């Protein structure tokens, strides 16, 4: 409540001395923010840096504890989302705010004033007009539950525009998009910028910041760090500002040692719920001491593949051969049809970090000890469970992986995504697996946590574990994998050596096209 006048009229939004705390956690302290007319501003920060909280304050979801907000030069109070609309501020949340059973048009018109009934025809027409103006593709009558993620995002953006938003906040819009969809989104953002709209892009992906924005505002741990012109910034300079110290962006790839086969997948075929093939004649081998990356557009069969190997998905055809030692002889055991418990009983040391951490991986309302106990309680016979040893493991994991938690008895849903992932990966590694499958292990994680996970995977690889790494960031996959398997529509379109293959070629494989053999494909 210090100053009452904004510095320049050029600023469509100015936020000053913003503070907000949740209970005892100070989410924002004395944060400043400026947005100019007709610019794309990146709001950059790691997880928990307060960037989403700040924007939630601007869009009326949260109310600040202290601070002033100016919109178009006037001091304003934003108490609820409606106040934000009235100021022409629209926000596209990371978790879409859409009603599944409504059509696109119904979602767009939701909550707007007007006549008692809704004229659906003129509504659809208006939606199409907006879509044409900026280059969106949309079917106003399509139900949201039938839509892909990128279509849902389109609905969200049009919803904001339909409400006359001049200031558009996009919260991590590219996290769920393919590279092609991302490019399209950026084109649309540029078209909106030409139309004198101001856009705030919340992100932690640096290459996107550099590609599309005019200026960058960096937050760290709830504090304002600096605002710079994008043209003066580099990936390294932004990272240093974001993390607060100089970090190396190189991912290690130690040379594979002591390579020996662990898992062989032969003509594996599984069906999806509709009965079409989710995996079609998949063949590959994984060796101990190496990381096999799996790339592909999301929904190409990655989930089914992991779950089939883990004994969680019914297999229609083919075999999954796991190398075990029986009476001193190495034999390939077919594990198709066994459930996870039977796999454990067979002595098959397999660990799986699923993509849905809090759904399939951990129980959110239980604490660390109980979550670790889920994997342990069968080891000891008897009526009562042993809580001491999982507690010891939990305390060791907290120390080794630098998990930030009040104590090991805090329900894990209260922890940040990075810490949850460390617990999950830590628990799985603790079972001393010979095969470790991780699906999207760094999704939503900040730079520090991501590198902790990469290092853990490399450690396992050096111990002789076979690691399967399903990822979405092609740059990371190409840096960390020893071999890279590309899935497209449930088929393996190539297993390549990422050291000698170009990103463009892998992109083609992801789209289901083959590349010339000489270029390094089939370097199995």
């Amino acid at each position, binding site marked *: 409540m210090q100053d009452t006048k904004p510095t320049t009229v050029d600023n469509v939004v100015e936020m000053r001395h913003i503070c907000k705390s949740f209970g005892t956690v100070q989410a924002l302290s004395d944060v400043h923010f400026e947005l100019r007319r007709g610019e794309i501003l990146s709001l950059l920060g790691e997880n928990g840096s307060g960037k989403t909280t700040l924007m939630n304050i601007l869009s009326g979801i949260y109310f600040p504890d202290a601070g002033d907000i100016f919109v178009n030069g006037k001091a304003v109070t934003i108490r609820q989302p409606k106040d934000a*609309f009235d100021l022409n501020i629209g926000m596209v949340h990371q978790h879409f705010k859409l009603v599944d059973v409504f059509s696109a048009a119904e979602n767009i018109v*939701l*909550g707007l004033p*007007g006549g*008692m009934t*809704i004229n659906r025809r003129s509504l659809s027409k208006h939606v199409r007009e907006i879509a044409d103006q900026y280059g969106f593709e949309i079917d106003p009558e399509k139900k949201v539950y039938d839509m892909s993620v990128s279509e849902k995002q389109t609905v969200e953006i049009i919803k904001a525009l339909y409400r006359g938003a001049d200031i558009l906040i996009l919260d991590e819009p590219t996290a769920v998009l393919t590279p092609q969809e991302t490019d399209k989104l950026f084109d649309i953002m540029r078209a909106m910028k030409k139309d004198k709209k101001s856009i705030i892009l919340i992100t932690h992906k640096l290459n996107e910041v550099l590609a599309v924005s005019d200026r960058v505002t960096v937050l760290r741990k709830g504090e304002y760090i600096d605002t710079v012109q994008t043209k003066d910034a580099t990936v390294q300079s932004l990272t240093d500002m974001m993390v607060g110290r100089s970090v190396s962006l190189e991912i290690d790839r130690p040379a594979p040692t002591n390579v020996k086969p662990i898992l062989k997948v032969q003509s594996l075929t599984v069906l999806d719920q509709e009965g079409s093939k989710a995996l079609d004649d998949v063949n590959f081998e994984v060796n101990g001491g190496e990381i096999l990356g799996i790339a592909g557009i999301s929904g190409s069969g990655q989930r089914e593949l992991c779950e089939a190997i883990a004994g969680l998905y019914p297999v229609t055809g083919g075999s999954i051969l796991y190398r075990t030692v029986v009476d001193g002889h190495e034999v390939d055991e077919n594990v198709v049809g066994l459930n996870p418990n039977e796999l454990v009983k067979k002595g098959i040391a397999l660990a799986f970090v699923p993509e849905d951490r809090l759904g399939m991986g951990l129980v959110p309302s239980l604490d660390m000890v109980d979550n670790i106990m889920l994997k342990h309680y069968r080891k000891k016979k008897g009526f009562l469970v042993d809580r001491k040893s999982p507690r010891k493991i939990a305390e060791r994991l907290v120390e080794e992986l630098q998990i930030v938690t009040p104590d090991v008895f805090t329900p894990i849903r209260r922890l940040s995504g990075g810490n949850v992932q460390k617990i999950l990966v830590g628990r799985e590694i603790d079972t001393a697996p010979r095969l470790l499958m991780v699906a999207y292990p760094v999704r939503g994680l900040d730079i520090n946590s991501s590198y902790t996970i990469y290092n853990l995977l490399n450690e396992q690889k050096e111990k002789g574990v076979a690691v399967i790494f399903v990822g979405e960031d092609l740059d990371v996959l190409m840096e960390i994998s020893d071999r890279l398997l590309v899935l497209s529509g449930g088929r393996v379109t190539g297993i390549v050596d990422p050291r000698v293959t170009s990103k463009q070629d892998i992109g083609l494989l992801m789209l289901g096209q083959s590349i010339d053999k000489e270029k390094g494909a089939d370097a199995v």
Partner: protein
Amino acid sequence: MKVLNVIINLINAAVLAGTPLLLATSGEILTEKSGNLNLGVEGQMYMGAIAGLAGAWFAEQWFGTGGMIPLIIAVIFSFIMGCISGLIYSVLTVTLRANQNVTGLTLAIFGTGFGKFFGEVLGHKAGGFVAVGQETKAMFGNINFGKLTETPFIGTLFFRYNWLVYFALIIAVIMGWYLNKTRSGLSLRAVGESPGTADSAGINVTRYKYGATIIGGGLCGLAGMYMSMVNQKGIWVTDCVSGYGWLAIALVIFSTWSPLRAIYSSIIFGGLTVMYMRIPIPGLPTAIYMMFPYIATIIVLILTSIKQIKEHAQPASTGLNYYREER
């Protein structure tokens, strides 16, 4: 001819028995569309039943006349009593964010006790038992459509009911139109499906939840009045609601959250509840016969969970309380 008569009589009885179910089901659909799973319908009906009867009885005492005035007072009293029960539920679950299931079950127990207690009190006051006069009773009897009622077949099928039957039908149709066609109905459905979405679209979630739950409660109150004024003919009977409130909750599922489908499903359920009196099956104990509506509910539950149609499902956030700043 005889078979046709039996069928028409059964349909008449089914409609009469289905009407309180239709009123309560419409009320509960409205409530659930706002995301409030109110399991207290049975209690709300009891509260409406006693309020309606007491209203009519006192009106007769005050104004010294039966007929229209006691009728109007009964309607107003039972509706307001239902609204109050909805208000209690809303304050507890929306404002104080109490668990919806527990609150609903408590309301069912509370309302049942409330009805039975004041039924006894009123009985003592009236000197033995409460009963309204003939004139008032006639107001809840079948409407005389004159020649129309005499028309064979059509007359007996459509024009042999009391006014509440037509009123309940109109309410259900209006509610169907409101939910599917109006702007406000769209907002209400959004609140029940995804309150966070509705909130960020500028819809006042609290107001919609209160509004729908209170009006829904009022309809349950009217359904209760039907039990005491029509079924028991204006005499207080301790078990007058007798599980109809629970049936109404099952009917909401049976009619897949659509007030229009509730029309025929309430008639079917009404038929199932009275069939044992109309078409006795030799050798089948009545107790088993009376289980039919509940068996039908279980079968429908199984069928609807096999065939998942998103539009026919429970509103996604039903049973969950909403708090904007939750993290």
